């Protein structure tokens, strides 16, 4: 990583929100992109929090560490003295913490858990579960240490596109059940933050038909619900082919000979097939990209990582996320 070629904006311009909600269809690399964003936004001495809420331990698996507890932990150093912390929010723990804060439950809280009461409460009212999860995210986002905010930015590895609208739309879900009381107040506070300019929902996709369809649907859904959609993050993009057009077998044979490679019929035919598939794929990708451009949202393309998402790969993604601005 050469600092000269990486004009990281320490203020995180281009990413104006404080809470970044990252969603996407399963398999699009949403967790990796969320982690890369947390790294990018922490660069230059800032501190960010990367949060997961689905009990998948995706962050721990991505970073190759032990499962995360319900506790904010140092996860990684960012370039130029920044820090990324991580938190796996658990609905049960969040409920106990919440009850404890207001009602000082102590041992009774543990008894309730043993009894299955907590499981029961979060099971029977799924909206309650989500309000507890998003409530914790809100608390971390708005927390201050004296004058200073604890986190410059919070990045949420959110549920996938199919569930994101319902997950964020906490007031509607809880309003059906809790008509008065602190939970209602709590959910209204969360809803206000999620619908404010402090929050941006980013959608991760691939240049493939189904993820793009889900991206388009999710953006329409989120917009209708009043959430601010930030960017479309296109993951796994392959480098452009400079020549781009179809190559003839004869041309290919001459090239192979010039490169000192074997150029028998099978090799030429094989490479010719590969080139044809590439062109088909690229044409499809171009038309899919055009569909995304039509959404009229800021779009960032993230490179395909040929060796998978390791730490170096995350750094590459992080650079791409801020360099694009």
């Amino acid at each position, binding site marked *: 990583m050469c600092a000269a070629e990486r004009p990281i904006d320490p203020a995180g311009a281009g990413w104006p929100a404080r809470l970044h909600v990252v969603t996407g269809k399963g398999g699009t690399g949403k967790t990796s992109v969320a982690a890369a964003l947390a790294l990018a936004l922490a660069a230059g001495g800032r501190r960010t929090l990367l949060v997961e809420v689905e*009990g998948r331990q995706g962050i721990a698996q991505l970073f190759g560490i032990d499962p995360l507890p319900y506790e904010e932990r140092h996860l990684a150093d960012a370039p130029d003295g920044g820090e990324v912390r991580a938190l796996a929010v658990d609905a049960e723990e969040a409920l106990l913490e919440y009850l404890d804060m207001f009602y000082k439950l102590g041992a009774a809280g543990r008894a309730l858990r043993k009894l299955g009461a907590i499981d029961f409460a979060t099971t029977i009212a*799924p*909206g309650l579960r989500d309000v507890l999860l998003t409530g914790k995210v809100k608390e971390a986002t708005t927390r201050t240490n004296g004058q200073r905010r604890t986190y410059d930015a919070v990045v949420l590895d959110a549920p996938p596109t199919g569930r994101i609208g319902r997950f964020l739309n906490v007031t509607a879900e809880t309003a059906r059940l809790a008509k008065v009381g602190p*939970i*209602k107040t709590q959910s209204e506070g969360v809803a206000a933050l999620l619908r404010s300019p402090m929050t941006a929902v980013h959608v991760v996709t691939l240049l493939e*038909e189904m993820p793009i369809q889900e991206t388009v649907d999710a953006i329409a859904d989120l917009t209708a619900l009043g959430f601010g959609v930030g960017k479309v993050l296109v993951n796994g993009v392959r480098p452009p*082919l400079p020549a781009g057009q179809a190559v003839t077998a004869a041309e290919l044979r001459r*090239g192979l000979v010039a*490169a*000192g490679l074997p150029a028998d019929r099978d090799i030429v035919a094989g490479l010719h097939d590969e080139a044809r598939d590439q062109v088909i794929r690229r044409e499809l990708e171009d038309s899919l990209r055009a569909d995304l451009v039509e959404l009229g949202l800021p779009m960032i393309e993230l490179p395909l990582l040929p060796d998978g998402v390791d730490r170096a790969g995350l750094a590459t993604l992080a650079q791409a996320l801020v360099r694009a601005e």
Partner: protein
Amino acid sequence: MPSEDAAPQLDVDQILADPGVRIVVCCGAGGVGKTTTAAALALRAAEHHGRRTVVLTIDPARRLAQSLGLTELDNTPRQVKGIDVEGSGGELHAMMLDMKRTFDDVVLQHTDPAKAAEIFANPFYQAMSSTFAGTQEYMAMEKLGQLHARGEWDLIVVDTPPSRSALDFLDAPARLSRFLDGRMLRLLLAPARSGGRSMFSLVTASFGMFSKVVQKVLGAQLLTDLSGFVAALDSMFGGFRQRAEQTYRILQARETAFLLVATPEPDAVREAAYFAGRLREEQMPLAGLVLNRVHRPAVPELDAEQSRVAAERLTELGGHEATADVLRAHAALARQAVREQQVAARFTEAFPAVPAVSVTAQPADVHDVDGLRTIGAAISRP
């Protein structure tokens, strides 16, 4: 493929043709092509093996659904027209799961109309039947049980819901029945049933506290709704539990074949490995692994490094840009193939006895019957 050396080859035709196999369950992480795989297998069972097949899909992509003639959630299997079953005599039916309607049907079956109406009107039922994490999984299994009980089909192919984790769908029936049958509910009902007779004192004390807290936090109306819901469901506990257990036993039986679906990506392979472990624990019949979207260079003898070096040489020489591009693309493909094999090996090393089949990535997405046929052929004859 070197990565498959360790694992026996999965023969899906043998499974689809076997009259003893009545249920095929496709499971795996989200985004690995479960629905497409399920539809392709069902089509192949009908066209090639002459079986009267129904495919139960959960949330198919719009165009795939259209290609099967599914335009709405109607919870009823519809015959798929325009497929080639003249020679085989098979049939293909398809349906999309309507979670809420399936839940409503279960309620109706287990109670009288007046009580059912009361349940349907309860806000807890409304929340639970449409959003409860696990309801979709439970209802998929319920629907499977219903289709199986009707005995109209030779083969039922099930696509599992895009769960948080692939395990949810195995756990959901048990969780729901545990929940409906649980101590919490009995406690909530206890005062009504027996004048407040308690099980043991600490529980009662905490529970009294719990009620108070719930009243404070959620409001009294909520508690009233909750106990109404619980009382209404009380009569159905036995039925719910019995059905969940029945479905579980069907899944363990030899007439069922589980197929894990994955792509050669770390998350998907990890989910598949978890699932394989779970199926083993639960003594459920795992038939094999379908590895979708595998990249295979057409010229395996030319490796990534050779190819990259040659592309650079051509760029220096000039005049061979098109070939240099092809070689660079080949290098990327070869590198991806090597990485995919390493990722896939994590599964085959952990479960060397589980048969596997790799399906080459298609250049374009599948959304018609022809595309499904191609996929079916690719799964059967890799």
